[in-house]
């Protein structure tokens, strides 16, 4: 056990500022955006392999999730009426700029896919929209990792190599899980496959993330992910992910077990995003997570 590092600070005040993003708006956005993007992936795959009922459910989920997601995002702005200013420029150095343009493309396409399927209008265009949403969906599900990690927040920034995989896995797990809730397991094989793959990726990537953070610079930046209520939420999420994964596989003959497993995966995905968000905020508030690793890096420790 490494002893607590000695360091000075200015009256224990934070060095950086906590992001201005509010709860629940932004963590909800992270979860819903991931769910939407991965649901479009599921919809495209299900449609191509003939699982029509599942494909429709996934398209509706995607549209619903992205609509709520966009509402949460606009609501969190300090000047919501100026949300269109996001489209004044395209800046690859800003994940929020890239994401805004992705959303501007993905939203209408996901909407068209769902509406066409439900109403039966313009099936050809609907099929194209489904594939288009399936192509943009992965970007929607993963760019949010860049959004968090491209900041000065220690618990997020230091995890930049693993976070995209955590988010992709979490999104896939949630989308597959929602498919299992909505559709009988016999007609939801792609959903189960996506859920199992996503859950496995999420569990492994999260472990890698915490291992790396625990090793960094003399002050474990894994601490905010493990301590207090945040730690409890993330551990519960891990348990629900593992349980949901097991249930999806072992209970694939049973509607009830499948649905319960799916719900478990969806809840776990939401809890993971909230937990990661809170951990970041905590790491910004306590100056030690900024000061100690930087002193170590600059050779002063």
């Amino acid at each position, binding site marked *: 056990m490494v002893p607590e590092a000695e360091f*000075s600070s200015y009256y224990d005040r934070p060095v950086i500022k906590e*992001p201005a993003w509010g709860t629940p708006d932004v963590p909800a956005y992270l979860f819903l955006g991931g769910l939407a993007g991965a649901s479009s992936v599921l919809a495209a795959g299900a449609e191509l392999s003939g699982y029509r009922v599942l494909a429709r459910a996934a398209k509706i989920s995607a549209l619903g999730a992205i609509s709520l997601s966009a509402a949460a995002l606009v609501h969190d*702005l300090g000047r919501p009426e*100026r949300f269109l*200013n996001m489209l004044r420029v395209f800046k690859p150095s800003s994940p929020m700029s890239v994401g805004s343009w992705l959303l501007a493309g993905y939203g209408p396409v996901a909407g068209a896919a769902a509406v066409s399927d439900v109403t039966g209008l313009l099936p050809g265009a609907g099929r194209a929209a489904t594939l288009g949403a399936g192509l943009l969906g*992965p970007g929607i599900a*993963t760019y949010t990792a*860049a959004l968090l990690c491209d900041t000065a927040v220690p618990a997020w920034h230091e995890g930049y190599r*693993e976070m995209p995989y955590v988010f992709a896995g979490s999104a896939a797990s949630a989308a597959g899980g929602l498919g299992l809730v909505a559709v009988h397991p016999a007609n939801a094989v792609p959903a189960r496959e996506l859920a199992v793959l996503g859950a496995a990726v999420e569990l492994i990537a999260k472990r890698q993330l915490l291992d790396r953070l625990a090793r960094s610079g003399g002050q474990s930046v894994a601490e905010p992910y493990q301590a207090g209520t945040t730690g409890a939420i993330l551990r519960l999420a891990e348990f629900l992910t593992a349980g949901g994964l097991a249930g999806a596989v072992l209970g694939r003959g049973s509607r009830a077990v499948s649905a319960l497993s799916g719900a478990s995966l969806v809840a776990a995905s939401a809890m993971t995003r909230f937990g990661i968000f809170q951990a970041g905020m905590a790491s910004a508030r306590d100056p030690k997570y900024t000061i100690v690793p930087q*002193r170590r890096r600059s050779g002063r420790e």
Partner: protein
Amino acid sequence: MSIDPAARAGYAGHPPRMGFFTDTSLCIGCKACEVACKEWNAVPEDGLSLSGMSYDNTVGLGASTWRHVAFIEQPVPPRVNALEAAASPSSVEAAGGMRWLMSSDVCKHCTEAGCLDVCPTGALFRTEFGTVVVQDDVCNGCGYCVGACPFGVIARSEEDGQAHKCTLCYDRLGTGLEPACAKACPTDSIQFGPLDELRERARLRVQDLREAGRDSAQLYLGDPDDGIGGAGAFFLLLDEPEVYGLPPDPVVTTRDLPGLWRHVAIAAAGLAATAVALGLGRRKAGG
């Protein structure tokens, strides 16, 4: 190797890069800089309470505080040598009892500015003087800049929902005036001018202080090879940066962005490939 931020931003034939050299060894803690800044920029009042942090009742930089004077009262071990005693401004310090560090903090106008890089609306921009300014009529208050600043400078106002910070008095520079804080500073602790002149002056000043026995004198953010490409507003400190609330070794988050985007691309490609794999799965009749 020194980057010219104004040239990089696309200005042809721009004026020399302007900035601040804040020599905290000269600061007397009068807070004229805080007042002048608020007066000139019509920055709102943001708190009239006592913090208990020595004379610092401003507490930190924010949307409504663009100059912040920090006060640190430090015990000094009684092995102060004669040279240091002669050089010190206070007889209390010479007696080896206590010394008082005072510093006027401000936006660093980084050469590689995190806030500028992440702003999605283009509200934050680089001026022809190499400074970083927010356009109040564009900012939609997304708050991304707040978490991206390695120094905790910029913040979102609760009153108008937008981000605000020091403009290096952009409106004064255009007419050849110096910023309000530099104008008001009675000891010339805040020095304004072309950045390379200030860097040279600072180098000589640190040398003088060290020769006079003040070994802890150090430049902060004066090196163009540091993690933000050097700052447009740099400092002479008399102790470690973290004592003043400054990060010891800040690196702009954008430095890691290429690697981050690569991992995002791989993760996204993996998810997309899954769609293809799912699509190639067993065809289900009438599902």
